[in-house]
């Protein structure tokens, strides 16, 4: 029987803690058909702009639309790759430089499916989810992040 999947929350308030990532990895120890996990982490960079150096990024999203889009992406990736598990977490609110703002986690029996799916997920998340990052430089200066 196919497992019926429903939209999941992907949003986390503030930075994603390394301990959360460890917990997520540990949760998969009971799934003994998994041979490989692929993880991508986005970390906030201290980019240097004309106005100064980025201190943090403040993320906002059109949440309902993002969750619906994320669900469609999940379904498409599950249909394309033989995955055991897939997890997506994205920060909302302020994430300081050096902290983690995106955590994508795929698992499969053989490594290639997990790696291919993870890479495609990251690209689609950045391109298709209605999320915006505002780079905070200081009290007076900020700039809307541009994805390349």
């Amino acid at each position, binding site marked *: 029987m196919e497992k019926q999947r429903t939209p999941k929350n992907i949003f986390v308030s503030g930075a994603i803690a390394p301990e959360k990532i460890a917990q997520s990895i540990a949760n998969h120890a009971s799934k003994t058909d998994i041979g490989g996990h692929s993880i991508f982490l*986005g970390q906030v960079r201290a980019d240097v702009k004309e106005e100064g150096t980025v201190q943090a990024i403040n*993320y*906002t*999203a*059109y949440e*309902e*639309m*993002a969750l*619906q889009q994320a669900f469609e992406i999940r379904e498409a990736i599950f249909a394309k790759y033989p995955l055991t598990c897939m997890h997506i977490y*994205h920060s909302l609110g302020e994430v300081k430089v050096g902290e983690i*703002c*995106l955590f994508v986690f795929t698992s499969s029996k053989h490594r290639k499916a997990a790696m291919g799916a993870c890479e495609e997920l*990251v690209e689609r*998340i*950045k*391109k*298709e*989810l*209605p*999320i*915006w*990052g*505002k780079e905070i430089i200081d009290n007076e200066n900020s700039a*809307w*992040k*541009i*994805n390349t």
Partner: protein
Amino acid sequence: MKILAFGKIAEIIGQEELQVDNFPNTEILKGYLYQQFPDLQKMKFSIAIDKKLTSGDVSIPMDVEIALLPPFSGG
């Protein structure tokens, strides 16, 4: 009709939600927005109707949620 604004567009408009009269299609809506908020003319943005992206000029049904979306920059 309710219009949601996000990111830089919310900053330009000065609020995250607008109540406006109904517009028959997205082209006419854009014309109204450009007139009211001239800074929007310098920006690229998309329009979503009930959380679905639109492209080109599409008609706007009654009782929908319109959203103005600057280029995405998650991750």
